[in-house]
């Protein structure tokens, strides 16, 4: 958390409290409209904690809201009332009578427990499969609420809930929700989850356990939405299961999407806009007097209006009104930079223990195609090994297998003699394997610093965020990126993006670093500068580097050893000088015919 985030959050809080005070002083329907607005805002912020940070849209959160409204209603309803309306409720619920606060706490905890169970399944799914599953959750919970007649009155009205939600309660909870949502977004959890939203594969390679991060945010978001459920139940006093189904899901998603689901400002803007428009339409659809002219009744205008707004906003700005902008980040840009003082926190490179990474007869088949056929390779600390070969020879596949992004079909990969073949990428990252990607995979919406911070935080919480910051500084300095540290990664030049990839890989403090075509797309000067930097890395950090590149002069000058792959086989291995004279290598590169010509290129 930075000072700027806190000041920004304070701004939102002041806004909410001011709105609440104004509404409370006007009273009446304005006050009630604002109560509903606060409740919607809490729900939207809750949904945003999951959907905004993970990038996975959820249709299922209204299920949590429904469970919370019913459960808290049962807990707070007077026992005498329950005897009449819920005559067949189980005794422990029929006799329960809690105060508002205890009922809220019990309900929120219960909903979070339910979310945890459901989340174990949903967090394993990606993108639209996860979204569809959340839709299933909504439908199933809807069915269960109707079926559990004894405690919910089925699809009949559930009434007799004390109307305890007033503007003070609603505003306080909204303040809580906005602080939680904003703090979560910039927390270690939020940062890692957002990294996985921008690029799931890269996040895994940088040590992010994507499933766990999704699960944490899912459960937290369910808790926030549960608060909204408790409040709406105790605001309405009577509701039916319809309240927690498609129509309201649509309205809340509209708020989330129209404002821009990635940010807290977006949730706020969306909730304000949709509330204003729908309240306005709802009031005029019954017909109003405008300067003596009576407008006709047009019931149904509200839903059509919200639909049109979504269409319009999506057409003009598909990321929502605020897209990925956080208001506090625009309003307070230079005033309070993310960093206060850098020099003080800089540290010397951490000591990396010596180690050995071995690939033993790794085989990888894609259906019938053998991409790697019994490839063996070793990489020691302090060594730079080049991996070359024609396009399609299996270089990137080998890196993917060794970094845990692809499971090997056969063979083993070992670190210091320990088998690590079955481990997922994020575990390997923690064991000291780090990499860059051939087709740049940065966390595009995040700043350079945040990109690097994601991997630096791999050791968190066993090592502090302070030391992670120090690691980031070191990585940025090493790759000469200090000047662009606060720039959004996707806006950088190609060469700079490649350097960020390296810095991000470095921040994991790896023992083994895989560089997949780090010089691709760079001109000669940039390549030379990069080569100096890479040599510096080995001296400074002492890790083993496995580098894939088509720039053969670079490979030849940089590497201690070179391994040549062709059609999934190792066809040559050894010192650069010997490899480049190897006839098999020459043949592999340009076929028999052009072998003489290429020999020239290789030795150049």
């Amino acid at each position, binding site marked *: 958390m930075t000072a700027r985030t806190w000041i920004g959050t304070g701004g939102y809080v002041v806004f909410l409290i001011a709105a609440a005070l104004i509404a409370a002083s006007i009273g*009446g*329907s*304005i006050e*009630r*409209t604002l109560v*509903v607005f606060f409740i919607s805002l809490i729900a939207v912020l809750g949904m945003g904690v999951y959907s905004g940070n993970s990038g996975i849209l959820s249709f299922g959160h209204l299920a949590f809201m429904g469970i919370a409204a019913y459960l808290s209603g049962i807990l707070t309803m007077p026992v005498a009332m329950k005897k*009449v*309306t819920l*005559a067949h409720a189980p005794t422990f619920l029929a006799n329960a009578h809690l105060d508002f606060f205890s009922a809220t706490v019990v309900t929120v905890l219960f909903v979070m427990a339910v979310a945890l169970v459901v989340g174990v399944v949903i967090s394993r799914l990606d993108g639209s499969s996860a979204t569809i599953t959340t839709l299933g959750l909504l439908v199933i919970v809807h069915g269960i609420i*109707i079926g559990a*007649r004894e405690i919910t009155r*089925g*699809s*009949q*009205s*559930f*009434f*007799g809930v004390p*109307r305890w939600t007033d503007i003070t309660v609603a505003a306080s909870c909204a303040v809580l929700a906005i602080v939680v949502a904003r703090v979560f977004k910039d927390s270690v959890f939020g940062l890692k989850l957002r990294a996985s939203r921008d690029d799931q594969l890269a996040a895994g390679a940088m040590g992010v356990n994507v499933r766990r991060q999704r699960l944490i945010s899912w459960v937290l978001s369910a808790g926030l939405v549960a608060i909204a459920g408790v409040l*709406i139940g105790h605001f*309405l*006093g*009577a*509701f*039916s299961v*319809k*309240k927690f189904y498609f*129509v309201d899901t649509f309205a809340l998603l509209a708020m989330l999407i129209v404002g821009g689901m990635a940010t807290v400002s977006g949730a706020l803007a969306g909730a*304000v*806009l949709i509330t*204003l*428009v729908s*309240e*306005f339409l*709802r*009031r*005029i*659809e*019954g*017909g*109003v007097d405008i300067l003596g002219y009576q407008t006709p*009744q047009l*019931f*149904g205008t509200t839903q059509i209006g919200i639909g049109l707004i979504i269409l319009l906003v999506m057409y003009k700005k598909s990321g929502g*009104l605020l897209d990925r902008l956080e208001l506090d980040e625009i309003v307070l840009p230079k005033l309070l930079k993310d960093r206060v003082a850098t020099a003080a926190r800089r540290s010397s490179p951490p000591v990396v223990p010596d180690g050995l990474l071995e690939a033993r007869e790794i085989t990888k088949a894609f259906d019938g195609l053998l991409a790697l056929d019994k490839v063996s390779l070793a990489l020691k600390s302090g060594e730079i090994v080049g991996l070359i070969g024609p396009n399609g020879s299996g270089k990137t596949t080998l890196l993917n297998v060794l970094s845990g992004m692809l499971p090997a079909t056969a063979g083993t990969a070992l670190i210091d003699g320990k088998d690590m073949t079955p481990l997922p990428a994020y575990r390997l990252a923690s064991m000291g394997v780090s990499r860059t990607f051939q087709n740049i995979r940065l966390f595009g919406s995040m700043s350079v610093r945040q990109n690097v911070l994601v991997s630096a935080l791999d050791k968190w919480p066993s090592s502090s965020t302070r030391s992670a910051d120090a690691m980031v500084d070191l990585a940025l300095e090493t790759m000469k990126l200090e000047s662009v540290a606060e720039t959004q990664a996707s806006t950088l030049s190609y060469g700079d993006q490649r350097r960020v990839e390296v810095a991000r890989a470095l921040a994991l403090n790896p023992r083994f670093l895989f560089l997949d075509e780090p010089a691709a797309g760079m001109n000669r000067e940039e390549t030379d500068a990069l080569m100096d930097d890479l040599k510096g890395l080995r001296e400074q950090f002492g890790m083993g580097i496995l580098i894939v590149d088509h720039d053969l002069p670079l490979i030849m000058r940089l590497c201690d050893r070179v391994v040549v792959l062709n059609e999934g086989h190792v066809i040559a291995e050894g010192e650069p000088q010997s490899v480049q004279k190897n006839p098999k290598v020459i043949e592999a590169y340009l076929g028999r015919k052009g072998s003489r010509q290429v020999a020239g290129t290789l030795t150049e």
Partner: protein
Amino acid sequence: MFRKLRLTACLTAALAVAALPVAGSAQELVIGTATGQTGGLAPYDGPAMQGFQIAVDEINAAGGIAGKFKIKLISKDTRSDAAQTSIAAQELIDSGISVLITPSDADPSFAAAALATDAKIPAFSPAASSPTLPMMGGDYMFANFPGDNVQATVSAEWATKQGLKNAYVLYSPDTQYTTLPLYFSDVFKKLGGNVAGEGTYTIGQQDFSAEVTKIKSMNPPVDVVMTAAYEPDFPAFIRQLRAAGVTAQVIGSDGIDSPTTFSLGAAAEGLVFSTAGHATPGSALEDFNKKFAVKYGKETDTIFSAIGYDLMKVIEAGVMKAGSTEPQAIRDAVAELENIKGVTSVITYKGTTGMPVRQVTLIRVKDGKRELVGQPSPTADLVPAPRMQ
């Protein structure tokens, strides 16, 4: 950015104007209607409010109630949803109404009843027929329709008189109204009949094959089937029942007093249902139907428009008796009303807890048309006590 701000500012201003309290002058009776103009209740609340409007226009044209209280209507749509009913009712109460109209079903009306009671404003549901509504809804909640228990008693007595002995009732626990057949069961058994089975369905269910098979396989055969199902369930049910060859007498209730029922052809032929009135030649209802046709350019095709008209007449009588538009006074006056002449029936609230005493009409579908079976009064001792079910 500024354009966006300007838009927001305009919206805010418009919202503020729309939200201004509209409390009328002392000489104005402000009635708020929170009814289901869209959604599942629209076939009932739509016509009811059309009929209501006719009465309002008539009264205002004549100079207001008792020649001095002009009526002002504020209408809101509840989308046939309990939660939205609660919000709409609260807004109406906030804007200073004297009388609240709630949806034509007991379930969403419960949401409004609690608010009306807190605000001490009389509330009326045009066509909710569950006797539990005024029972649970409190002193300020009134119904305007023959109660489910009364309708069921009339139907059961008629069935017994026809010599029908073996009944099957089909109900849905989804709403209070659709549990009406359980009252029928009670009365039918008291009268010596046998209830062979009580089946359930879900509102919106389209496939009744399991229920139909059960009814068909009953031994001795079922000679009367009673249900309070309505659209879209009822047409599906009776078609499937007839298609399976079951010829038992089917009895329904007011929910099927709609044009659909008369367009079902052979499947609905002979069907009998209870409702709130019938336009015999020269009757007040026939008169009303003519007014309706003049105002809306089409014939009314349901009793609910007349029910809406009658509701306004009840309120008029209450205000007249109270001599004021003060909500508490109106409430107390309505509770004492006797023999108000509506177009569907004579209406009495005195001595009840809010469920009016009104005639029940039995209608038979004959050649796709309405045929009056009778307008019998139920035997008072037989009427079951209201209960949540």
